[in-house]
């Protein structure tokens, strides 16, 4: 699925099919798991950012980048990678903005997964 720009795909259906073998039930289950887990991890990420626990920001963003990539949510994966890199470099400037971008990308991925 395209997000209307030349940027990364909101949902790379080929990657999702590769991971699931195109099994519709498995796609649904995987999408539900991804969304539920990502929502919980985003809560943790926001809390870690508020309390300046930058190592935790790095670790959680790394996990979200991986899980997003696994379901083909390429745009969200790249946005979480930007958060992860800032966390790894202990770079707090622009971190909140990077997280906001990642959250928006995740919302688009969630909508795309729901429409499958």
């Amino acid at each position, binding site marked *: 699925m395209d997000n209307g720009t030349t940027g990364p795909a909101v949902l790379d259906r080929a*990657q999702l099919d*590769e*991971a*699931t*073998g195109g*099994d519709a039930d*498995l796609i649904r*289950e*995987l999408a539900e*798991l*991804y969304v*539920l*887990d990502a929502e919980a991890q985003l809560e943790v990420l926001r809390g870690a950012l508020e309390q300046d626990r930058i190592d935790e920001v790095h*670790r959680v963003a*790394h*996990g979200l*980048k*991986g*899980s997003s*990539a*696994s*379901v*083909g949510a390429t745009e969200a994966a790249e946005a979480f990678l930007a958060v992860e890199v800032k966390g790894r470099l202990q770079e707090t400037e622009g971190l909140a903005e990077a997280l906001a971008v990642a959250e928006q990308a995740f919302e688009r991925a969630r909508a795309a997964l729901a429409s499958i």
Partner: protein
Amino acid sequence: MRILVADDDPGTRLVLSTQLTDFGHEVEVAEDGQAAWESFQRQPFDALVLDWMMPRMDGPDLARLVRADDDRPFCFILMLTSRRTTEDLVEGIAAGADDFMTKPFDKDELRARLHAAERVIALERRLARKVDDLEQALSEVKTLRGLLPICMYCHSIRDDRDIWERIEEYIAQHSEANFTHSICPGCYEERVKPMLSELKKDAEKKAI
């Protein structure tokens, strides 16, 4: 193979569990490195598929623990991670991983790498059995090492129980060797020939 998957992402656990089962493997999943280590200690696995960053214990730390545990048969470790730099690969291999794949992964590549893993596992375990056999053989040879008191006249040997034994009995008891009687050329000339000559003379006398 019996495969243990450790990944804190439930989606990756679901996908790996489904794919590995489809490949014909028996799969167990753990949600972090610590849970995987506890599972590994309870039961044997042929291969571990480990994520890198996990809460409580990460993949490299788990690999180091598994490699330090000499009591179990060889277990193949595949690191499956979104970390992809050369430094990451070097660090993962140094921690004890045998192979390294990056996420998101290709199903066919995973299947191919696990085929290769099966060959490595078979080879490592055959090698371990050979080493065991060699060590066993060496331990048997060791029983014949050391200073043995031997009688300078009859060549009997005094054993650990202070009993003097014939040398062939002693060797037979302390090694895999067995003896069969024979006559060396020197003894044939020195002992057997005169004996045969005496017997011949006795026979001639009796004939007269």
